[in-house]
């Protein structure tokens, strides 16, 4: 995934994941590199879905 996508692109995809699954419980440990396999935590992190 790091060859295919830049860090920014990976981060955008992690935000989509976080919008659906804020605690990263669903099939975590897949798709993203291990180091990136945690909830997105930027200053403008998406609010949790209601």
């Amino acid at each position, binding site marked *: *995934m790091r060859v295919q996508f830049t860090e920014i692109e990976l981060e955008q995809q992690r935000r989509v994941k976080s919008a*659906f699954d804020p*605690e990263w*419980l669903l099939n975590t440990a897949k798709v993203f590199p*291990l180091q990136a396999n945690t909830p997105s935590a930027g200053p403008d992190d998406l609010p949790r*879905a209601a």
Partner: protein
Amino acid sequence: MIALPLPKADVLIRRDAVHAGLRVLLPEGCVITDPTRLKPYETDGLSAYRQMPLAVVLPETTEQVAAVLRFCHENGVRVVPRGAGTSLSGGALPLADAVVIGMMRMNQVIEVNYRDRYAVVRAGVTNLGITGAVEAEGFFYAPDPSSQLACMIGGNIGMNSGGAHCLKYGVTANNVLGVRLVTIEGEILELGGTHLDTAGYDWLGIVIGSEGQLGIATEITVRILRAPEGTRAMLAAFEGNEVAGACVAAIIGSGIIPVALEFMDRPAIHACEAFAHAGYPLDAEAMLIIEVEGSVAEQDWLLGQIKEICAGFNPISLKVSQSAEESAAIWKGRKGAFGAIGRISPDYLCMDGVIPTSTLPMVLRRIGEMSVQYGLQVANIFHAGDGNLHPLIMFDANDPASMHKAEAFGAEILCLCVEVGGCLTGEHGVGVENAI
């Protein structure tokens, strides 16, 4: 080597409480916690990697899936969705602290609507089971992964699965109209509908191919298509991989879209012929299976065009199937290819890269060079028409050095795919295999 996160210690020590909590939510026999009965769930189609889960649940309804997800969410427990466990990228590989949600008991076809050409099925219906439910009326479900006898539509949604005939009909995303999705909070969402494209954002586009990371699909509305009047396959044999690759590029470049255009190299031809007895050309270095469909006149015209193009690449032989039985044997060899390789090598890694078809000759040459460099045999079997490569790297998992080399070889192939303008997964998904 793939890396998995450390299990959550606070979940592992609550193992018994989690088991008890799940038993309250589901009927008798739907919660598996006994290690002997958990064993079959420790791996999937990427069987070099194994991990016993915390528990396996087998829900029978959407409401039960929602109840389990709500419980896991409230208790901070990880979840791994699973269909038939045929994932070639480790998509259903469990985690030690995770509950595996197996969808196989939700295997009912709910509705078939021929007038509007859709079917509503539960996630545990097999891919081929959908066609089975509608073929008597002359319809079929188009995407056809080689594992279609076993793999389930829910898993196809997760991986946006493809198959040999997707060259003409598109992949899962092009054939799904609606999805009932359960979120991790246990909310039940209806995405899409019963027709192509709905108002508003394309939620299906986000969910299909999301590898079970955004929610669990429990009911799926698929397009069903009228089966073609007839199909005919032909075999074209060539003296080398590169020239066969160039022929593929020429067929696609001419604007012809066969329903399938498959490539096999020498090791693959020999392995498949040994069990399928399909009349594959054993003297060839590379072979193409080209299938066309339609009325007899349409088939004749298309095959004539394709033969003319093939003739420009100095073929060893061109053979058009003369009967339905002959065509079936040709496909039996191709669809059983992975199993056939299993007969000649203890283990193999199946890569799943995509490249622009025009770069096929160069990429095949580079893979050949890498095979020599790593000292590992490779069989090339793939959906050539859409540039979806499946190099099968043969190795011995009992020899750590051999496994390490196979992984490095595979990674180098995928880097090459990205380098030439392609991508690292065509239809199997990223899973754990390609995450790095």
